[in-house]
């Protein structure tokens, strides 16, 4: 695992979903793919958009919009898959657009603000003031934690 503590990462992969700009530690990103054919999973939580055949591995795709409870009205945009590596395998985040990889200036990295609300609160690790605006540094491990509560029993 990479440094999820107070230590800011060195480089972030940036992406957008809705009006939010996010960043994920580059070490946690496996690859970026254009929209893939997805197999719908009936009965799955709404965040799960489907399954992707990633060169023979079956990877769960999680919709960032659904995860953030945004309207899924992004049909006009060709969404992209950001494959992230997790502790036990890979998962895909379906996001609106993937941007550049940026190197961080540690002085402009701030810890998580307290005022954040529900879905964002858990996944955001810190905030980075980039030249183009605020970036939310998120933990893919938490983003991909869909229905973990039910799973425990």
């Amino acid at each position, binding site marked *: 695992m990479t440094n999820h503590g107070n230590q800011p990462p060195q480089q972030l992969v940036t992406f957008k979903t809705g009006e939010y700009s996010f960043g994920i530690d580059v070490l946690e990103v496996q690859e970026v793919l254009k929209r893939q*054919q997805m*197999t*719908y*999973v*009936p*009965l*799955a*939580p709404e*965040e*799960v958009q489907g*399954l*992707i*055949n990633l060169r*023979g*591995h*079956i*990877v*769960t795709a*999680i919709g960032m919009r659904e995860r953030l409870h945004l309207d899924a009205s992004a049909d006009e945009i060709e969404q992209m898959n950001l494959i992230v590596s*997790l502790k*036990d*395998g890979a*998962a895909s985040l379906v996001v609106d657009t993937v941007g550049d990889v940026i190197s961080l200036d540690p002085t402009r990295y701030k810890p998580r603000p307290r005022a954040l609300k529900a879905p964002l609160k858990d996944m955001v690790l810190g905030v980075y003031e980039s030249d183009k605006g605020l970036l939310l540094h998120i933990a893919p491990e938490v983003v*991909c*934690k*869909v*229905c*973990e509560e*039910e*799973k425990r029993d």
Partner: protein
Amino acid sequence: MGEQDGLLNDFLVETKEGLDHLDAELLALESSPDDRDLINAIFRRLHTIKGVCGFLDFHKLESVTHAGETLLGELRSETLKVDDKIITLLLTLCDAIRTIVSSIEETKREGDSRFDTLVAELLEAAKAPQASSETEELSLDDQFEMLLAQREAEEASQATAAPSAVSPVATRAEAISPIEVPQSPTHQPEHHEQTQVKTGAQETSLRVDVELLDHLMNLAGELVLARNQILQTTKGNQDVNFRAITQRLNLVTSELQEGVMKTRMQPINTVWSKFPRVVRDLSMTCKKQVRLEMYGKETELDKTLIEAIKDPLTHIVRNSIDHGIELPEARLAKGKSAEGCITMRASQEGGYVIIEIIDDGGGLNTEKIRDRALERGLISREKAQSMSESDIHRLIFAPGFSTADTITNLSGRGVGMDVVKSSVEKIGGHVDITSHSDQGSSIRLKIPLTLAIIPALLLSCAGQKFAVPQSAITELVQLGASEKLGSLSWIGNYPFYKLRGDLLPLLFLSKQLKFSAGNDVADQDKVIVVIDSDGSRFGVVVDAVHDTEEIVVKPLGRQLGNLPIYAGATILGDGQIALIIDPAVLGREANIERQEMAASQASAATSGPTVSESEQLLIVQVSSEVRAAIPLNEVRRLEEFNLRDIERVGASSVIQYRGSILQLVDVAACLGNSAERWSGGHVVVVGNGDSVVGLQVQAILDVTTQLTAIKPVQGKDGITSYGVIQGKVIALLDVDHLVKLGAMGIVGFVNEESAAI
């Protein structure tokens, strides 16, 4: 002796592993001498070795380990501090153990090496007060002495021509190396050759990380998928060369897959080896005399499956001893030998391994099972009347069933055979029982060879493909548009399908997966997939079924962990993903049980619409005048044979059928109409388990339930009663009797030839 060998082998493998760990731990201890946990761990390791060698009668090894243990005991109680000298001493001890172990491996004896000096030193060190200042010199001295001792040991073992993998004196580098270098070339050459001839267990086999095997297995699976894709694309290709290459790829891939699968195989003896002990202990507790016989120990099964059948097998064996085998007096009274016998037999049959556990005990008590099932409300009174004996026997697999009057610590807690059944079914297997009063019972497990690749039926629902393991599917019923209105019946809100007079609870896959809300039987034709899983039988309505395919099961991500309805997913030939549905969970989530209850209540109330299968009769023409009826639930298959294929053995007719010999019974002859020659070629295969016979009949006429005016018949062999069907009198055949006659091999054509013999 075989068990002893197994034990010895286990001991050798474990000890070798333990020694490698021990080396590493000792070195770790050297760098952090105050780590009490480490000292304890080392102590335990030595203790384990000592314990086992006491058991196996290896006194030399025992005395050495004992001395080491004494020293470690001092370290543990902190009367002594860890220093280099002690570590070296302990490492030497490791090597000494290694010497003995390899000698045991080669010759089954401890060898002639002497370790008295080492033992003395260990005990000395345990007593010696701390003298840290002279450690270094002493340890040099020690090393020298040990060198001498070691050299002696080596010479001794060579003198007895017992080649042993003596590792040189414990220099640290070697102590940590995890691989045992067989022999360095500097040793005497003849020594080297001997080791090669007498291959020890460690040289012909290799311990490989299971994870690596799983990975290889996965890759082989991928290759199978890629192969499927290529085969699909080349289907229409005319290039002969290219086709030849794909053919070759096809074969090699299959072989590779098989080979990789084999690496995960273990002989079933790895679980069986503990049964002699279990049987011995249990029979003592029960005061019974039981002998255990095992056949097919070398039959191989996937490692994970071996683990999975361990508990079910133990349970079955316990049951056989506790309930099956009678007390010696009772056995003698029945004219059997006082000693009961449990036979375990394993064999491979196609893609399955068949395991049978047979006892020659009292057999199942049909009455008791029926009463208990009624008492527990597992079956209705009407059903109990109509159930055949073997159906009743199968009730012991029903959840919450136990006939033991007293709960012993062996069995009878009510979690018995149902757990066996469910755990066997969980791995795609099947379990069945046959039992004969006073002759004993036989439990048969059918286990697939591997879990990673399973045959599955592909079906589609709402335009999406799904896979269902073939093992759970009993049949497919096409639900035609014209037919569907008549054959679907509703009880309350529950849909049912009348399948050969039986009410089959239905569920709609599209509704279950929330594709649509209603029970829509839309315009297009649908298919019912009849599932038999986890003790319940139900039909799943789907849009269409496709091929059966060998699919590679892949796990789903953690994000879908709370959806047990999917057993995983697979990648199809065209690269698409299909979810694998777990039929047992599907039935559970649809509350099929409640639906079944509704059906049985409804049938109890009206007693009209449902006709259980056991009341159905197969009507056959036995001879030109005689018709007979056979209960349909006794019928296994209907066959038509060419008369030329029938062979005569002594007085009986047999035919080679599905790889074994089927005994034929001429029904007409049994009923006293021997004048007529059998000419039809029609055979009704009846019976179960090993006792299967073919009934020769002239023609197969009908399946019906309308048997009226039944009149029981006494004293006429082979017939239980007469009845009237469609205005004609027919004879209801006593199948059990006919099977018995067939099993004894005394019925074929009854004619002059046989009379003469």
